[in-house]
């Protein structure tokens, strides 16, 4: 069973619009982190934003923000004022702090490919 689910495999928007990318996850761990990464068309994978399970702060980084619904085990990435350069593949990632051993274990979703039209 997948631990990190990104329901939409593709998305398409016009420049200037706002987009919400959804991600749901499964974990029994108390402590974990959630990340969003973007796979650029050039092949580079870049970090966008992070949400800690213990934080209630609404994380934001530039035009990126997240909507974290811990009870629903859901984290959405919101991208405002879309630009054509936002095109790429977006990955949600879960980092669980394993109580046995105290190590983190990463799991990535399968990604959502976004195309932003000028």
């Amino acid at each position, binding site marked *: 069973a997948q631990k990190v689910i990104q329901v939409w495999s593709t998305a398409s928007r016009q420049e200037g619009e706002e987009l919400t990318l959804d991600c749901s996850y499964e974990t029994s761990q108390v402590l974990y982190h959630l990340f969003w990464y973007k796979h650029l068309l050039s*092949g*580079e*994978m870049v970090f966008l934003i992070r949400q*800690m399970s213990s934080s209630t702060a609404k994380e934001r980084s530039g035009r990126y923000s997240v909507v974290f619904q811990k009870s629903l085990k859901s984290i959405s990435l919101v991208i405002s004022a879309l630009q054509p350069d936002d095109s790429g593949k977006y990955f949600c990632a879960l980092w669980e*702090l394993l109580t046995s051993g105290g*190590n983190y274990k990463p799991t*990535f979703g399968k*990604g959502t490919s976004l195309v932003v039209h000028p």
Partner: protein
Amino acid sequence: NAGVIQTPRHKVTGKGQEATLWCEPISGHSAVFWYRQTIVQGLEFLTYFRNQAPIDDSGMPKERFSAQMPNQSHSTLKIQSTQPQDSAVYLCASSRDWGGAEQYFGPGTRLTVL
């Protein structure tokens, strides 16, 4: 800062041959991760090192895959007796710590097994 360096960028091997992939993490980063990316499976975690010590290799196929980090400046992923199903992009990433810090990814090595 050159970022994470992976070599070679492309490798083609014949079935049954060995492939060694190299990764140079960002200087000062204490954690190094290896992933395999395919269209079907997406991004799969293989293994990671913390301060050069192997921590979790639960994602590694047990029989033919091995990873090492002999020093803090490089890690290798070795695949013995490569099979066509090993064809994928292998990504290396490093982070300044082993838990909550973001990872910096290398450009990947595209392995093609004929």
